[in-house]
């Protein structure tokens, strides 16, 4: 018997023992590679290989989970997950029920032309060495460039008869320059590889075109301006957020706030809750009518598109906020049943395909897919600047800190450009802005057109206990918000 056959036998045994449902995720191989240059030195050249199985069992309405990198004793592993579920069922308040869905047999591969693991270490070093050289400049005190690749093969099997095989390969890459002001304080400017949601994201995504050389020149030039710039003003004005910060604004204060497990209180012991209540769906004015947000797992090419989630549900394109009104959430099979029952009405029609685990040894949770903002009718970045009386254009995420119910936030940026009477003016350093959540989104006064949108990759979204780091994306246009507190 091969290992998938053995897994099926163990799953069947769990059913015999009284499990309502069980699934297993087997990672025959997960390979990663990361290479980092720091100040001309190759600081990290590291590969890894992982094998393991995670087993999730639902018994009497309670979850048990067990995982192991030791794949030789499957009965012990599956037995441990079952015992954990039995123990958990001793303290229950709302028994877990899973929304119906048809079992699926399917395969999914992320789009790529050149497997980064087929590229030699020497070739990768050549690529990064060139970037490192490009960042070398008399105003740059420290320069960093990196590439990481992650290739996962995941086999999902459940007691309903689903069998899904996924082959997902992601590559993240970026660079950063740090410079020192006369007073000894440092400033930074960075660039991360992104996309547009289409095409492929194998090794070819890094080397095609001049993304890295062009952006290397740009970030060094911008750093040189920041180093001699005045401090950003401390007042109230319009903020024009470029995708390099707008993605994080969306991520933190829409994405996380709309995870249904957070709304139901499942993250209160760590990440926090949400100001959103079940009665808000269909009614709450989240933002101005320029705001339409979707969780789009069907975008052809993004770290936030993965075919099928770890509930065995297909990825979907779900409108979360429609012209400013809250419509839907980031959901899983478990949470929609609980939310609908608790609300006493059918708020959620079907599971959103958003349950994902970061590795074999973690349980699936509500995770963002691609949380995108629909492009608007307010033209280009220039058009938005021209229509602004007093504002600041902001880019780069230096710091982010959000209230535990996502009711307020504080962001610090790498760079700002003042805007006065429709003209983009000088660069300012140390810009920050902060606000309460709803007044901020309701002050959205301009959304850039498609030409302003970029797909930003997020390799490090943290959530859950035990903690999980997840990959996802945000396809985001330039947005403008009015009367925002800046400089604190």
């Amino acid at each position, binding site marked *: 018997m091969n290992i998938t056959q053995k897994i099926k036998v163990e799953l069947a045994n769990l059913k015999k023992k009284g499990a309502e449902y069980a699934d297993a995720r087997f990672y025959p191989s997960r390979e990663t590679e990361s290479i980092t240059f720091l100040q*001309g*030195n*190759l600081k990290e*050249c590291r*590969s890894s*290989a*992982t094998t*393991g199985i995670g087993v999730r069992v639902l018994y009497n309405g*309670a*979850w*048990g*989970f*067990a*995982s*192991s*990198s*030791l*794949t*030789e004793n499957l009965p012990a592993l599956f037995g441990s*997950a079952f015992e*954990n*579920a039995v*123990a*958990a*069922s*001793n*303290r*229950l308040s709302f028994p877990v029920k899973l929304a119906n869905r048809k079992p699926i047999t399917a395969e999914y591969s992320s789009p790529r032309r050149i497997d980064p693991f087929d590229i*030699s*270490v020497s070739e990768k*070093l050549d690529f990064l*060495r060139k970037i490192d050289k490009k960042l070398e400049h008399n105003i740059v*005190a*420290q320069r960093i460039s990196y590439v990481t690749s992650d290739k996962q093969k995941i086999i999902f099997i459940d007691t309903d008869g689903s069998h899904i095989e996924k082959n997902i390969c992601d590559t993240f890459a970026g660079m950063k320059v*740090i410079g*020192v002001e006369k007073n*000894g*304080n440092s400033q930074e400017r960075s660039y991360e590889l992104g996309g547009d949601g289409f095409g492929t994201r194998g090794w070819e995504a890094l080397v095609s075109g001049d993304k890295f050389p062009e952006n290397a020149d740009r970030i060094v030039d911008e750093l040189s301006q920041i180093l001699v710039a005045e401090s950003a003003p401390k007042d109230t004005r319009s903020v024009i957020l470029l995708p390099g910060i707008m993605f994080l604004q969306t991520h933190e204060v829409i994405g996380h706030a709309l995870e249904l497990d957070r709304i*139901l*209180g*499942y993250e*209160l*012991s760590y990440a*926090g*809750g949400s100001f959103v209540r079940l009665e808000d769906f269909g009614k709450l004015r989240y933002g101005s009518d320029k705001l339409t947000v979707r969780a789009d797992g069907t975008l052809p090419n993004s770290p936030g598109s993965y075919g099928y989630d770890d509930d065995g549900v297909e990825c979907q394109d779900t409108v979360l906020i429609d012209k400013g009104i809250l419509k839907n959430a980031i959901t899983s099979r478990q949470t929609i049943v609980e939310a609908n029952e608790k609300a006493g009405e059918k708020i959620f029609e079907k599971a959103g395909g958003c349950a994902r685990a970061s590795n074999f040894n973690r349980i699936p949770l509500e995770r963002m897919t691609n949380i995108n903002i629909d492009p608007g009718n307010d033209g280009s970045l220039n058009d938005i600047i021209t229509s602004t009386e007093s504002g600041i254009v902001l880019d780069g995420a230096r*710091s*982010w*800190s959000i*209230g*535990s*119910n996502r009711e307020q936030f*504080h962001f*610090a940026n790498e760079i700002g450009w003042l805007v006065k009477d429709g003209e983009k003016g000088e660069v300012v350093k*140390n810009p*920050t802005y*902060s606000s309460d959540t709803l007044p901020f989104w309701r002050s959205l006064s301009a959304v850039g057109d498609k030409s302003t949108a970029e797909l930003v990759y997020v390799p490090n979204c943290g959530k859950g*206990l*035990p*903690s999980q780091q997840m990959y996802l994306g945000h396809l985001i246009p330039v947005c403008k918000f009015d009367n925002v507190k800046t400089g*604190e």
Partner: protein
Amino acid sequence: MKAKIKKLLAELNNFARGKNITAEYLLHAEKSNLIRLANSAVSLNTSEELVKLIVTSRRGRRAGTYSITTDLSAIDRMKSAIVSADEIAQSADEVNYDVTLTPMTQLPDDDVNFDDALVGMNSSEKLDFINKAVGTLETDKIKLSGIFSTGAVWEAVANTLSESVLFHSVSDGQISLELTHSELKWEIAATQSAISKSDLNPEKIQSQLSTLLNIYQNTSPEIIKTGKYDIILSGEALAELIGMMEYIGFSGGLFKRKMSCLRDEHLGKKIFDDKLTIVDDPAVRETFPSVFDYNGNQRSKFTFVENGVFKQFMWDRDSADEFNEKETGHDVSGLSTVISSGNELVSSINDIPENKELTLFIPHLHYMNIVNMTEGIITACSRFGALIFDKENKIRVPFNFRLTDNFFNIFNDIEWISNETVAVNTSNSYGMRSPAAAFVPKFIKLKNISITHVNKSF
């Protein structure tokens, strides 16, 4: 497990030596169990077993690293990991400085802080503890969340320059229980850190929760004004703050890379209130210490700040090599942070001495981040039971608020530090299990801290 791991690493080392590969290794095994609670129920009960080998091959100034997560019995895969690391090293670029690799001196096994009873606790014992700790505090409106995490780590390090295998193992427990009002949305919490089963004390948790619950149930919350306040931090909030400062202040490598708020001009100078003393002390068992680092350096007490004076930077081996400094035994997964206690007799919030000005109490900091590294500016929100002590020491309840200030100001004027101390478990569960805790005063009072945002609701 101990014998198995030591023997396995010795065998791998022999293999590498036979192949003329120069290599260093960390062999890590862990066992974890975590019960997570939400809405007064167990939302997850999870167990995990994991074995990981990290091997770095060194060819002079070239290095390559390969790690595998696998079975302890997969010795052939581990051997091929060594060969793979060496292949990477062959292709790697040289760094522009000399790289240190020294033979490891055999040290006695470091396993005194291992308690089988803690690691072996089963789910029903943990649920009993939780039920005792919460007692009758839950209601249909007041719901329990939290975690009860226990585990063990077995680690061995070695390199091909000697046959020594250094072994370290530790058990750890982390409990945090929160009570939340499902409609009013306020939250209170109590935490506990354990290195052995006998450290577990459900009554202590219940006493902390009941004190805060009593205040929160009987007091209407109010919106405070932004501005400067005197602030009392709990041990938990202090440990988190100091953890962040260790990261952006005490690392020699970060200082040389122009990313640190402390620089050479601060060395030997008084930068904080003289009541503040911060050391890294592996003799303090509550911190899950390791007596050697990953390079086999024996660790000893290391002073960062003494009576407000900044004494020295810590140097990991790679930074020390690059910047021509001496390594200080700090290639570890977590420091053994100890902050000296003070003279104020404060054991709980009931003992807080009278305040001349309206004073805020922050039990926990939520979502701290670094606004500006070199200026040492951080921002974070209050969470899990903030309080207001007014001038008559009457206790009131604020909605949560945001603190944004720099470390130089935050620790510039310390009114008092409590005489009692507490172990605060600061472990996170990303990547490998690596227990960490700080041993800190239970309370500290800081003067003149900036509150930059106030919430209007919970």
